[in-house]
């Protein structure tokens, strides 16, 4: 229905737009969790999703790598294109999509395997390393990028579930970057981290931006302001405002955005 419009947009901004969502609706049974959201997420950019609890940030994020497929009662409508491909097209394999669109979940969820295997799992199943040495290198590089290498380098073969909550979350970040995804979806990656680890993860996000598109859900306005170039404000399932981060925080257009960032709703 919107094919004509999309063509034009893709022609003009194909180099910049990584993810293009049009009229996305999500229902959980009868709950209408995402209401007609259209948004363009740019390549080599950090996009922050902010909004009060329960407004649908995680839900929308999970549409972008079809994680909602795993929830029986969830129904997704509308179009989402990544690099111009409709990711809900029957010809698209969600496995391939998720290798390209990595995700860090709201709650840390390491595998009950060793730290090493947690990181090595993705590269192994995708065949990214030909030799053990290559795999070792991927593991070390990923753990360094996850800002956790120094803490775990002497215990790589202990279970990942034995780490503290914050360490587990950084392990999950390292696991997500190990497969070198093109888009990284991060659902409140720093909610369990101390300020030092938070700063390290923010540095990582900044570094990832050089090559990837990063979408981060956060409850911290400061964090959104620090790491993101674009910010989207969600409220009750609607995308209320989506603009340059600087503008949204200094000069919000919508009254709801203003109330939220000044702390009156949320």
């Amino acid at each position, binding site marked *: 229905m919107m094919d004509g419009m999309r063509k034009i947009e893709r022609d003009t901004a194909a180099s910049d737009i990584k993810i293009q969502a049009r009229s996305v609706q999500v229902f959980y049974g009868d709950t209408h969790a995402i209401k007609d959201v259209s948004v363009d997420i740019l390549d080599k950019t950090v996009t922050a999703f902010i909004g009060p609890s329960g407004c649908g940030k995680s839900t929308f994020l999970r549409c972008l*790598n079809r*994680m909602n497929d*795993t929830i*029986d009662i969830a129904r997704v409508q509308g179009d989402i294109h990544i690099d111009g491909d409709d990711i809900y097209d029957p010809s698209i394999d*969600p*496995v*391939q999509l*998720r*290798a390209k669109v*990595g*995700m860090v*979940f709201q*709650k840390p*969820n*390491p*595998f*009950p395997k060793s730290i090493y295997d947690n990181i090595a*799992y*993705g590269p192994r*199943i*995708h065949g990214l390393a030909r030799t053990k040495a290559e795999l070792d290198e991927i593991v070390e590089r990923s753990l360094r990028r996850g800002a956790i290498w120094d803490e775990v380098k002497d215990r790589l073969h202990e279970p990942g*579930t034995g780490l503290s909550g914050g360490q587990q979350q950084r392990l*999950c970040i390292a*696991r*997500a970057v*190990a*497969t070198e995804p093109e888009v990284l979806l991060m659902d409140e990656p720093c909610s369990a981290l101390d300020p030092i680890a938070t700063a390290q993860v923010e540095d990582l996000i900044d570094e990832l931006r050089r090559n990837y598109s990063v979408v981060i859900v956060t409850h911290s306005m400061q964090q959104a302001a620090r790491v993101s170039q674009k910010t989207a404000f969600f409220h009750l399932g609607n995308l209320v405002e989506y603009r340059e981060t600087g503008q949204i925080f200094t000069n919000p257009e919508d009254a709801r955005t203003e109330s939220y960032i000044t702390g009156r709703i949320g």
Partner: protein
Amino acid sequence: MADVTAGTNPGPKTVSTADVVRASLARRNRKQTLLQVLGLGAISFAFLMLFILIASLVSSGYHAFTQTHITLDVFIDPEEVPLERLPRGGFDDVLEASLASVLEDTDPNDRATMRALGGLLSNGAQFRLRDRVVEDPDLVGQTIAMTVPVSDPYDQLNKGLIDRETPEQHRRLKDFEIAWFDQLMAKEAISKPLNTGLIANADSRFPELAGLKGALIGSFWALFVCFVISFPLGIGAAIYLEEFAPKNKFSDLVEVNINNLAAVPSVVFGLLALAVFIGWFGLPRSAPFVGGMTLALMTMPTIIIATRAALKAVPPSIREAALGVGASKHQVVFGHVLPLAMPGILTGTIIGLAQALGETAPLLLIGMNAFITSAPSGPFDSATALPTQIFIWADSPERGFVSRTSAAILVLLGFLITMNAISIYLRNKFERSW
């Protein structure tokens, strides 16, 4: 908190939350104590019953763990056992003669006395002697020492189960027989070693020879066949139903029916096996293979239910994590979910097999209660199983089978306890937190 509420609340609220809590505390603690007492009571009751069961089994069964033997110097008379007629020969006469030579007041020419003497020894004694001589024919003409079981009445006498005060006509052993036994005792020819025959012998009409070997091997084959069939099929079905099958009316129907299957009385499975496996497919009666297939019908629903529960218990976050790095559905299931569910699956399987081990009714229907005096050499030979052997022995009139029945039950319970202990061990060993 209490002070804050009290302070900010307008109106005459003078009671603090702490006071309210204190007032109800005694009542709440009382309820908790009551619950604990009831729980302890229930457990004590269960333990008491278990103790009574085991104690009664042990008190009647411990006699069967020893067996009275007699040691004799046997002269293998070439006249009774001519070399050229082996393996035939008068082995019983040889044994009787050697007994007569030991005992006083016995006339080797009196047939009645000799027959009574023969009754002292187990019926199997002559076959043991025969086997030894056949193996080594040079023994003919020599005198060898042999230790053989005595017959059941003498075994009972030795174990104090025959009362010497009973009037002679009501006793299984006459006065002169008791006198013989006492003479043998005085000569230290009588011993009471551990009854290895209980495990090493197959079934027999004579209690002093009857053992569980056939039943143990029969049960082993039946369980083995049951496991080989029900474990892969059960796990496969559970994985398909839980992870891959579309959720609709049909899968609900399947689920209901599997739960029903688990509740079907076992005798029904026995009838089914009789009609299908033996009637239609023409498989042999009494074979552990058929028994195992029958037991598999019963164990499979248990395994399916246990496996599905174990798969369900794996937290969704683990599946999401694996899907999130791009694992395919089958990689998620076989790489993450199944290993995490394995302890639960194994526990369920062992419990299912333990049930199968104790199952009697379906095995009776397919004829695994036949009287078979040799252990099966494979799953297609006729055999009994432990529970059906108990059934047979419990039904036998000989006194000696009373204690053997209890002993066999103890053996069965021993296996069940071992299996359940293994399942608890597995559960604790692999229990994880995530």
